[in-house]
């Protein structure tokens, strides 16, 4: 009878140790995942702005009627 009690006690102890071992393993696994998440990085790209820094002023000066008139009136004298 004492032998059976001892066997049961040892098995219970064995189960407890195994359970603790499993808990430690799970805990480690969860920590490791969190660490991976913590390793994530955030970055922002750069943008180079380029604008047009010049404007154009345009016009055309046409010949005036007086400038086109090369002859003038030749009246009779």
């Amino acid at each position: 009878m004492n032998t059976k009690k001892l066997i049961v006690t040892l098995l219970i102890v064995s189960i407890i140790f195994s359970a603790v071992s499993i808990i430690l393993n799970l805990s480690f696994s969860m920590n490791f995942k969190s660490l991976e998440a913590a390793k994530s990085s955030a970055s922002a790209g750069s943008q180079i702005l380029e604008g047009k820094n010049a404007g154009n002023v345009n016009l055309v000066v046409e010949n005036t009627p007086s400038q086109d008139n090369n002859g003038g009136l030749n009246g009779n004298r």
Partner: protein
Amino acid sequence: METDKVLLTIAVVAVAVSVIGLVFTYNTISGFKLWLTGLATDTATANVTITSSEAINFTTDNINWGSGTVNGGETNATLDTASGTVTGGTWTAVSQGFILENIGNVNVTLDLATDKDASTFIGGTSPLYQFNVTNNEAGSCPSANQSITFGAYYDVNTTSPGTRVCDNFQFTDASDTLRIDIKVVIPADAIPEAKGSIMTATATAV
């Protein structure tokens, strides 16, 4: 009785294996803690650097009065985008001046220069080529930072970087555009031809 011995042996072995496993697991975790720089409670840092960018842009970059002549009997014609009028000539009136926007992310100083002055651009007797700056959006160049009188015409400047217009041209979207109007006076004796000039704006971060 013999069975009890076997079971007892198995139980002892099981306990021994469990103890060994537990010790091994503990040692392994302790070792990883020494390797790693962070655990679940560690902090992560996100760094962002915003680079300053000075940039300006002529969102309206062309003033074109088209073709025309000085009216007969007139000594000259005046073309003005600020008033949107043409007097003494037959050119098409233009009421839109240049619009210059600060598209960067810093306030800048602003200088304006042209490639030609009145004589080389228009020619003839007593030509005029002037510009006039105003805030297109209120506060784009605060009064205290205006280097010239806004709303008044000035002769263009061909010496780079040109005439200092504003010491603190703002970049915030609600107030980051200036209007630059142009006035030219074309004498009756200006040479008939197509005429063009380029105005260049130079910005420097404050």
